[in-house]
Structure formats: structure tokens, C-alpha cells
């Protein structure tokens, strides 16, 4: 607890994230109204006139839509980042372990993949297999691979310079074994920090994809599509545009602050500057 009090960013970010996760899980068992229930009579009702946050162009309850949207947004973000992290860390640590041409290839591939932001690859994939959760997960996951590969490689390279790795090498341990026993445990903290920040990026990307219509398909609720739908009613019902955006911003802010806070704790050297 003392550590938390000394890091307000960590505390605040952790609280927001926790609240978000709780909301997402709660939406699986309870929402104020069924999120897909259409009630034309309360169409475009402003906040407090129908439900806490009003209703959308189909008369659906916005608070319920936002809650269910949190589940979709977070689950896609989590799965995509996890996949990207698994692939990227594998490539990055191996590049650091083997050096030479293996490293060269991995880094070139990372350069290439980096040129395909999630939206770009999502459009390619959506053109082939149509929009959907899979499209979003693959697109966001693929973009995370080079990010983690670069972070894991540069961190692993530093570990490889350390004395205890030298000792392990002279004891005849192989590159793979050293990677598992010495490198991974020592870069795990850094990777968790990066993953938290990537989660924030993934939530942003997911919102962008569903805004374009290549993410979660209707009628599943999604923050990005709520924003895209709101464009038609921008002047009549501005709350349709404002509320989902606030939800996205809050979620991203929460994960970013959590990531910054974790970094402060794990790597205090960087603290002054950030």
C-alpha cells in the first residue's frame, strides 16, 4: 500500500483499469437494459430521459451498450496483445540469443511489419474474409509482433552482456536454456509494462477498426461503431458522439497511466524524466 501511495499514477491508472474490467465482466451478467433491445419510442433520448445515459437511434440503452462494448473492446485488445506479445517476444529473444543473420532477418521483418498499422492490415484481411473479431484480432496482433520483438531484443541484448549470463555460458548452457532461465525472467517486468501500454494502443486500434466497420459486426455493441453511427445524428443527438468517445479515452488513459506507474516502480531510473 505504501508503494501505491508513493505512485499516484499507478494508483489512479490501476483504479480506472480495475473499474473498467469490473464493468466489462459485469456486463456479461447484468446491464441496466438488454444492450440490443430496440425501443423506437425512446429514440435519440438524451441522458437521464431514458436510462442513465440516454438512448441511441434505435432506442437502445446507451449505458448498457457502453458496458457491453467494454467487454468486446477489452477482450479483443487482450487477445490481440497476448498473441502479438507471444510472437514478438519469441522472435526478439531468439534474435538476441543467436545474433548474426537470424537477428538481421528478425529486425528486417520487424521493419516491414511496422509499416502496416492495424487499420491497414485489417482492411486487407477484411477484404478477404470479411469484417469480424478474427480480422480485428489478427490485424492488431500482427502489428504488436514487431513492437514486442524490438523491445524484447534490445532488453535481452542487455541481459546477455551481464556477468551471470557469461557464467552460465561458460558453464556450457545453450542459448535457448539461457534465454529461458536468465533472459526471460529478467525482462519480464519490462514486457509487462510494454504490454500495458500496448493494451491502450490496442483499445484505440479496435475502436478505429469498428469505426471503419471492420471490427466486431453488428448487432454486437462496440464503442467504435457507436461513434460511426453517431455521425448521422451529430447535431440532433450530440451525446451519441460524446459518450462512446469518453469511454474510449478513459480506457486508454487508464491503461496508459497504469503502464507509466508500473514503469516507475520497475525502472525507477526513468522516473524523473517521464
Amino acid at each position, binding site marked *: 500500500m505504501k508503494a501505491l501511495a508513493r505512485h499516484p499514477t499507478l494508483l489512479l491508472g490501476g483504479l480506472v483499469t480495475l473499474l473498467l474490467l469490473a464493468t466489462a465482466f459485469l456486463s456479461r451478467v447484468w446491464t441496466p437494459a438488454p444492450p440490443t433491445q430496440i425501443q423506437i419510442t425512446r429514440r435519440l433520448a438524451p441522458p437521464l430521459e431514458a436510462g442513465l445515459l440516454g438512448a441511441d437511434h434505435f432506442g437502445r440503452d446507451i449505458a448498457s451498450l457502453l458496458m457491453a462494448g467494454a467487454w468486446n473492446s477489452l477482450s479483443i485488445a487482450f487477445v490481440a496483445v497476448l498473441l502479438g506479445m507471444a510472437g514478438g517476444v519469441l522472435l526478439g529473444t531468439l534474435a538476441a540469443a543467436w545474433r548474426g543473420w537470424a537477428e538481421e532477418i528478425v529486425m*528486417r*521483418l520487424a*521493419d*516491414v511489419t*511496422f*509499416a*502496416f*498499422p*492495424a*487499420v*491497414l492490415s485489417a*482492411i*486487407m*484481411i*477484411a*477484404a*478477404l474474409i470479411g469484417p469480424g473479431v478474427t480480422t480485428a484480432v489478427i490485424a492488431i496482433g500482427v502489428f504488436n509482433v514487431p513492437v514486442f520483438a524490438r523491445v524484447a531484443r534490445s532488453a535481452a541484448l542487455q541481459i546477455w552482456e551481464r556477468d551471470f549470463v557469461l557464467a552460465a555460458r561458460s558453464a556450457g548452457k545453450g542459448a535457448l536454456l539461457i534465454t529461458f532461465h536468465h533472459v526471460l525472467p529478467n525482462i519480464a517486468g519490462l514486457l509487462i509494462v510494454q504490454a500495458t501500454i500496448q493494451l*491502450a494502443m490496442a483499445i*484505440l*486500434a479496435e*475502436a*478505429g477498426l469498428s*469505426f*471503419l466497420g*471492420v471490427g466486431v459486426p453488428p448487432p454486437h455493441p462496440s464503442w467504435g461503431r457507436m*461513434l460511426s453511427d*453517431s*455521425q448521422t445524428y*451529430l*447535431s440532433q443527438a*450530440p451525446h451519441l*458522439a*460524446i459518450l*462512446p*468517445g469518453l469511454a*474510449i*479515452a*478513459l480506457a*486508454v*488513459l487508464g491503461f*496508459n*497511466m497504469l503502464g507509466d506507474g508500473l514503469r516507475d516502480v520497475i525502472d525507477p531510473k526513468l522516473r*524523473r*524524466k*517521464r
Partner: protein
Amino acid sequence: MILLLLRRFASLIVTLLLASLAIFVVLEVLPGDPAAIMLGTEAREDTLAALRQQMGLDRPAYERYLDWLGGMLTGDLGLSMTYRVSVSELVADRLAVTIPLAVMAILISTALAVPLGLIAAANHEKVADRGVMLFAQIGVAIPNFWFGLLLILFFSSYLGWFSAGGFPGWAANPALALKALLLPAIALALPQAAILARVTRSSVLEILGEDFVRTARAKGLTRRVTLHRHVLRNALIPVVTVMGMQFSFLVAGAILVENVFTLPGLGRLLFQAMSQRDLVVIKDVVLLFAALVILVNFLVDLAYAWLDPRLRQRT
């Protein structure tokens, strides 16, 4: 210096080739029959055959790939299935919107971020610093397409100063065209500015601790002059790096923001091509976007050499 340029250039070519290969494999090899995807399941066999013929799908993949690359180099990008015009023409018009949009966004974000970062670093841990950090923290969290919506809500719906979207074209009235790009550029620039302000701040703070800054102060230079003459240039190196890394996000953002403001840019073209499953256009435009990102990162590499004389000699 020349050797460095050659090496960088070779790596640029390799990266471009790999990117084009990846796009080609995903869009033409993996799906098996691209023609069937483009026309959908209800297509008649003879229309399918005609399209296959037109796309040259009867030839081996490597031949088609080389053809495509050759076409890229000569400016012949093939024929769009849906638009029935050459993709080169289509793209040229759209680039005239997207490139100015991206340049404006970069200019706005840099003009905002570098001074903010400097002010924050010069007032480390004071009110101004905390203010800038708060702006940065919130700025990165705001999706640019949402910010675009909010700008429309405020500046066109409420104040009526701007139109809600669309693009009048450069030929008719360049000033009006520029004005149509202003809100989208601001929407794109905000998250960029937030990130860059943060990087500028931490980079300036780091340089301020360097010995040569003390040397400059010992010469009698004021804090301000030292900041401008000695700190800024050295501090810009990481800023430029991050600008390069952020460019792919700028491209992604352009696709979204062009859709918010219904700008006839490359991003909107890509979006429409996706809806119509026009793989020919998608293939070309995706490569164009990826090439843009790769090219900008190449330019960033060159900018290092200008900013840091130590790199000019390294080979």
C-alpha cells in the same frame, strides 16, 4: 557518408520489396482465387473467367508479382474493377488530398509539441511542466476520429465556421481547399502532438544534464540562448526518431479521419475499395501507404546524419 547513404538505400529497397511481397502473398496467393473473392459467391462462371483473364490469374504467381512491380515502377497500376479507370489516375487525385493532409498534421503537431516540450523541460516539476504532461497524457488517449467528430460538432454544427466535411478540390479555390483540410489535420495532429511533446520534454531534460550545456553556460550564455543553440538541436534526435515511428499511426489515422470528414483521399479510396472488395485497388493503395511509411523512416535516418555529425562518418 556516401557509404552510409548506400547502405541505407539498399536497406530501403529490401524493405520495400519485402513489404510488396507480403501484400502480394496476402491478397493474391493466400486466398486461392482472388477473382472469386472480388465477385462474391453468386458470380457467374463466365464473368469469373473474364475477370481471371483480365487479372492474368492463369499465369504463375511469380510472373504476376514481377509484372505488378514492373507496373509500379512505370506508373501503370492496373485497372480498377469497380471504377473502370486506371488505378494510377485514381491514386494521383487522392494523393493530392492525403499528402497535404499528412504534411499539415505533421507541421501542426511539431509546431505545438516542440515548444510545449521545451517549456515543460525548462520549468521541470513546476506548474507549466505538470500542465504539459497532463495535456500529453490526455492527448494520447483521445482517438483522432473522435476528436474529429468533436471538432465538427463544435466548429461546424455549433459555430458554423467550417463545413462538416467534403473537399472542394484544389483547382477551384486553393484557400477553400486548405480550409477544408484544416480541421482534419488538427484532429490528426492532436495525439501526435501529445506524444511528441512528451518525447521533446524528456529529451531536453536529458540534454540539460549534459556537460556541454554547463560549458555553454560557463561561456556566459543565458539559459534561454543555451536552450536554443545547444540543447534543442541535440534534443531533436529522439524527437525525429519518434516522428518517424509515429508516421505509420499518422497513416492509419488519415484513413479514419478522411472517413470522418468525407475527404476524397487515399484512405477513403482504400475504405471504399474494401467495401467493394476491389483487390486491385487495395493491393496498390496498401503498398502505397506502406511505401510511404518506409520512405519516411528512410528520410528520418538521413535526418540523423544532419542532426548528429558523429553519424556522418560511421559506416
